């Protein structure tokens, strides 16, 4: 069991061990980087397949089923097609900016993925400020989006990139704050420490994940919504809203550059899901004590696949919001909720050493009640129904 759990760690150490001493650091870094790029790029391929298949089934279609068994080789065919497609740069486009943008859209995301632990002892770089580093790299993506929109010299691209940036900035606020709630609770910005803090089991069975606390549950949901927006997924996929601005900042891209943008988007999705798992769902930890025999990295990737399936499901169901509603939602709902979540955490921590009877229940009522009441109030405030009221239809005979 332990051997399987530490399989990749030991494998890496074995390979590093073959090299002379002064080479070892370099080799270790190269292996980690290659592993991250390789694993997540492979995951990207599988995800496109899952997404197309899932959407197909949701829409009562078979999805890709021609290339390979169950269409499993479809990502390969897609990639090949993207590679051999003509790469068009608009004549009046800013060539350098236009070309750099897709690269810049992928690189920071890969850097961000490096800090997420995927298993016990399996993290490429354990930064002291890993959480902030992750968010910072997410911020660099905005520059890439701007470069793509501006460099293409297309009104739709520019509009799309402006929308995308406005959306990303607005949702970065609740995203970072809901992440920081966890950092406050744990007292560290290192993602490894955050997973460490979620060790142990309630009653020896249920894991002590943050999502099982009132502030953690609220934070998780808020984080999930913000992450959906940050990763440009429905219902927040306005930047590429094809019915309005066609493909947004990616409009003028074709061939492999377009594929790179997609790679960036999906890797961003993995990053967001991975972070949500790390912050709230115990990272690579098992949910129940009796399931601990399953290797840690399997837990991480299992949770990641669950997230991907959830996002596909969401995409198959919901229409997208309008730009101003999106902003309204971010500033009038998400931000106050996240700030209140900080208060909820404070209440939770403050009452940690209460010695009244049923202390656990009271803590839940206090901290969770705050979030619930806030949710009810704010949701009523922004609900479109409040503005128009229910409809009654008359019928003429």
């Amino acid at each position, binding site marked *: 069991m332990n051997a399987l759990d530490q399989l990749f760690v030991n494998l890496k150490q074995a390979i590093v061990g073959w090299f002379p001493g002064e080479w070892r650091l370099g080799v270790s870094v190269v292996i980690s980087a290659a592993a991250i790029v390789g694993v997540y790029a492979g995951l990207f391929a599988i995800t496109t397949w899952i997404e197309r298949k*899932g959407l197909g*089934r*949701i*829409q*009562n*279609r*078979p999805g890709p*089923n021609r290339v390979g068994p169950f269409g499993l080789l479809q990502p390969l065919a897609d990639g090949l097609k993207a590679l051999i497609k003509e790469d068009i740069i608009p004549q009046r486009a800013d060539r350098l900016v236009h070309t750099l943008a897709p690269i810049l859209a992928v690189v920071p995301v890969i850097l961000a993925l490096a800090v997420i632990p995927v298993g016990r002892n399996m993290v490429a770089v354990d930064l002291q400020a890993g959480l902030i580093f992750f968010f910072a790299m997410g911020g660099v993506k905005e520059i890439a989006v701007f470069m793509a929109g501006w460099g293409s010299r297309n009104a739709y691209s520019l509009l799309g990139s402006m929308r995308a940036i406005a959306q990303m900035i607005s949702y970065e606020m609740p995203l970072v704050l809901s992440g920081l709630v966890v950092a406050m609770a744990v007292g560290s910005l290192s993602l490894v420490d955050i997973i460490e803090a979620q060790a142990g089991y309630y009653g020896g069975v249920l894991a002590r994940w943050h999502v099982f606390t009132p502030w953690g549950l609220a934070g998780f949901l808020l984080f999930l919504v913000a992450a959906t927006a940050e990763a440009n997924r429905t219902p927040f996929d306005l930047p590429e809203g094809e019915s309005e601005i066609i493909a947004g900042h990616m409009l003028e891209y074709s061939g492999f550059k377009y594929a790179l943008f997609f790679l960036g988007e999906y890797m961003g999705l993995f990053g967001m899901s991975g972070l949500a798992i790390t912050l709230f769902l115990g990272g690579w930890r098992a949910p129940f004590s009796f399931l601990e025999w399953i290797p840690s990295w399997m837990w991480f990737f299992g949770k990641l696949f669950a997230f991907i399936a959830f996002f596909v*499901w*969401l995409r*198959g*169901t919901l229409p997208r919001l309008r730009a101003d509603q999106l902003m309204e939602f971010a500033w009038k709902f998400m931000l106050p909720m996240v700030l209140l979540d900080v208060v909820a955490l404070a209440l939770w921590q403050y009452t940690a050493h209460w010695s009244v009877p049923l202390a656990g229940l009271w803590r839940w009522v206090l901290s969770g009640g705050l979030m619930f009441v806030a949710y009810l109030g704010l949701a009523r405030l922004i609900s479109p129904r409040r503005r128009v009221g229910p409809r009654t239809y008359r019928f003429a005979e």
Partner: protein
Amino acid sequence: MIETARNFVGSYYDPARFPTIQYPEERQPLPENSRSFPILIYDGEDPEAGLRCVACKICEKECPPQCIYIVVERDEKGRAKRHPAVFDLDISVCMGCQICVEVCPFDSIKMDVAFEKAGTDRFGRMLLHKQDLARPNEYFHQIHPTEAAQSDERVGKTKKAPKPKPKPAADAAAERQPSRLAA
């Protein structure tokens, strides 16, 4: 969300929720009335001699997009024979409306069901001549059995017996009773 999940699961076991047909391998049976493009019916073995068409040019006149082009065959003295020298049909113009079939008093032009007519040549491949259009009566029976039986009955009424060289008489009677109206 629940509704889409229901459809996701349903698509695996409920055929009503999974209407896709893997087209080139599987095909939906075409209903009998199905139509695609016109064909010319001939009796007997010889597609040239057995052609029912008498080059009356009614379909040419009635065709809304005017995709039919007919030249009457003439003998040495220049008299019109009851046979088309040229019968061209441009299926890039044809809209498959079936009006030629309805107006044809000789049960000669009918609708095919074959729809896979794609080709790489925009012009030559799409202009069909009478050799391309001619189909035996047995084929017609195959694709539209009910209609073919009715048509045979009418043709039998107007022609005493199928001869190698068709000589349809009493067009007037057929004209008064156009084929589709009796159906």
